[in-house]
């Protein structure tokens, strides 16, 4: 039986345990070791099964303000880590028009995640 070993650095406290996770050939968790506390186990499970990240990036904006060709945006919640680059490609073609208010929805439900992409600044001109 082949197994895969993954090392997950736990981010739940300053100890930053290097948690060892063993997976079987079906990607099922066989064992979790080297975590100093139960939070490390939960964190490592999440990181192995479905790691998620908030994406922060920019989209282009058409406005009267030539010094601000870009609008900073972020996903409102974390999305699966594996689709960050796909989300970037999706957002590369987005051009919004001013005015944009803080927290306006820029893209609804990006890549079917149920998570919206929102503005993190406002450009009113």
């Amino acid at each position, binding site marked *: 039986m082949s197994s895969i070993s993954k090392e997950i650095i736990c981010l739940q406290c300053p100890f930053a345990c290097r948690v060892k996770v063993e997976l079987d050939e079906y990607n099922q968790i066989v064992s979790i070791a080297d975590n100093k506390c139960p939070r490390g186990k939960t964190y490592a499970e999440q990181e192995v099964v479905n790691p998620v990240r908030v994406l922060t990036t920019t989209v282009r904006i058409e406005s009267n303000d030539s010094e601000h060709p870009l609008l900073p945006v972020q996903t409102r919640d974390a999305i699966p880590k594996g689709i960050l680059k796909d989300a*970037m490609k999706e957002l590369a073609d987005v051009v919004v028009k001013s005015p944009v208010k803080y927290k306006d929805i820029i893209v609804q439900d990006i890549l079917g995640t149920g998570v919206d992409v929102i503005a993190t600044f406002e450009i009113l001109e």
Partner: protein
Amino acid sequence: MSRILNKPVDVAVIGGGPGGIGAAIRAKEDGAKNVVLLERSEELGGMLPQCIHNGFGLHYFKEELSGPAYIHNLLKKMERTGVDVMTHTMAVNLDGTRITALTENSVVDIDAKSVILAMGCRERARGAVRIPGHRPAGVYTAGTAQRLINVEGYLPGRRVVIVGSGDIGMIMARRLTLEGAEVLCLVELLPFIGGLIRNEVQCLRDFNIPVFTSHVVTNVIGKDRVEKIIIAEVDKQRQLIPGSEKEYDADTLLLSVGLIPENELSLLTGVELNPLTGGPFVDDLWQTNVPGLFAGGNVVHVHDLADYVTESSEMAAANAVKFISGSLRTDRKLTVKAGKNIRYVVPNTIISDQPISFYMRVSWPLENATVRIGNIFEKKYTFVRPSEQIRIDIPANKLKEVSDEIVVSCDGEEAIAR
């Protein structure tokens, strides 16, 4: 060019970043009549508008925000406070609390009763780290690259080597990768990664970007544009290890090699600087050695969190307003010294009997560490690292018994090299 003489104000704040905005708001809230906020660029916010990543505001706004969002929230707070904001205005001279500033079309003399220095810090550049080799295009500080990508909309290069594993270097590694560039590696002189572990995981490991600790750039090759970057390992004495060279076909070199408080203006009026921080020596009221001249945020010492930049600048402003009204109490003078494994500590003197926040950095990483403030207070940490600033708040009554000097020190076990 016209010269407008003598614009009298209560409080003048130099620098419109997260510190300066906070200071200006606080000065108004605490009753200063005329408050002017001077900012040399076209907009307020300092570096934060280009820091589009998350991690700001958890402490100050109780919400995780991007850099632009943090500034948005601060600007909302400043609305209707009556702060006189002057953008495109650069302070060029300081004489006590009298400022000479250039606007787009005039010279202004601002006669302030009190001045708050909030100029922040700037990046160290190639000259500061003596990187050998050619001088082609394609060598940027990380902050310049960040501005190009996040504000102006240009990708500065396609194949990138980054020097420095501090948070800015790691965040730029992720940003460049997401924007389609290839980050070949990070190079770190020290034997450990300089920034937060969270960034090591989410900026480097997530994208399989290698980092070489105890390594330096030994050559930059390229006629017009960077063509090759050579790196090599160093030993404990920082001597090159022969045969350890690695060569990269890179078109870009990013430098994330530290920040320096920006105090050229402070020096013009005789502010004494601490060689360990590059910022003014300050007391616990954030006052410099020049009467009426206060300082907050990164101009004093480089902070990890924008939240603390805002907070310390607010404290400076509150005390500046007390200074004007003559109600600033100075009851004593205690000297604060950095002891064992403490690289620096702020403030440097204590003159009031208010509660105090000590900010410090350790020299070397330790496990199971104890930080001691003289013999009046101690705090235990599972880890201390130079990259993670330590803040310890002391209630006013704790310092009552101390007479003339207090030494801050840190003991612990040698951290296992990661």
